[in-house]
């Protein structure tokens, strides 16, 4: 499978993502620059974390209008796979490729720590092959990660099985105490209705190398690769 990792000015998780995809997952990777329009025949486009365009105006708002995003939006509309992590998720929300918005964390701080999540969606390839009872330890690192949407959209997320991951505690309890940022219903990641665009706040690429003593994030990449026929 060929992945295209987009680099925006201010991206800072791009190299981690490239390393994990290439070295750990043994996949082909193309590096895509924000000013380019050519997606180089990639099978999946990845928007990495960071502070694209300095998070000016709103996180992800300026990146959404970069030249490469026009191609990414067209690619997604044709059913192409797109995966955004952290700032990448914020960009996907701003581009309306996934529903919702990411607001400032309720505890008024940037939160950088390991959290626990559980897979939710049985039909989205990014979570479908992960056991629903398994608790994954994956780090978050964000100031604006509080997922929010109106109640009608929230209902449609449940009705269409679009919720990918929810924050939980070490034992798997999904409750207010295990919600790090005040996200609606503990939601850590969602996908679009067609289930080809995925966004999540936690960083699986920071939990995929055994040298870091945590490879729970690798399960997410494996779930993607297991299900995609290229």
């Amino acid at each position: 499978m060929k992945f295209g990792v987009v680099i925006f000015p201010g991206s800072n998780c791009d190299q981690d993502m490239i390393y994990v995809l290439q070295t750990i997952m043994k996949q082909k990777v193309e590096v895509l620059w924000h000013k380019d329009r050519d997606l180089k025949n990639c099978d999946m486009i990845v928007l990495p974390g960071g502070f694209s365009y300095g998070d000016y105006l709103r996180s992800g708002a300026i990146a959404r209008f970069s030249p490469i995003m026009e191609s990414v939006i067209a690619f997604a509309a044709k059913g192409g796979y797109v995966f955004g992590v952290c700032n990448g998720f914020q960009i996907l929300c701003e581009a309306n490729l996934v529903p919702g918005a990411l607001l400032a964390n309720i505890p008024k701080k940037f939160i950088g720590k390991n959290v626990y999540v559980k897979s939710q969606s049985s039909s989205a390839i990014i979570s479908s092959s992960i056991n629903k009872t398994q608790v994954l330890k994956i780090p978050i690192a964000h100031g604006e990660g509080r997922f929010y949407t109106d109640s009608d959209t929230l209902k449609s997320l449940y009705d269409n099985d679009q919720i990918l991951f929810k924050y939980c505690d070490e034992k798997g309890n999904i409750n207010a105490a295990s919600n790090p940022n005040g996200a609606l219903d503990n939601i850590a990641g969602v996908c679009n209705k067609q289930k080809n665009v995925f966004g999540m706040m936690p960083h699986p690429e920071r939990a995929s190398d055994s040298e870091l003593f945590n490879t729970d994030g690798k399960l997410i990449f494996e779930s993607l690769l297991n299900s995609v026929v290229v």
Partner: protein
Amino acid sequence: MKYKAEINVMPLKELLDPQGKAVTSSMTNLGLPTIQNVRVGKHISLEVEADSKEKANEMVEQACKKLLANLIMESYEFEVNPS
């Protein structure tokens, strides 16, 4: 003709605004405990070249909807005047 727009973007009323909440609580420390419900938004000003005020309004409206405000979490209002 050149017009100037003054735009206010505010977090939606139904949403918790952590920044506003932090400022509200510091009002007590400041000795002004009766100041309540501070909400923090953005003020944006811009200049636009347009044939008429209506055209300028249209362009600013488009800028607000597409970029300056995210309608899922924010509302906007603006005023356009010849600059």
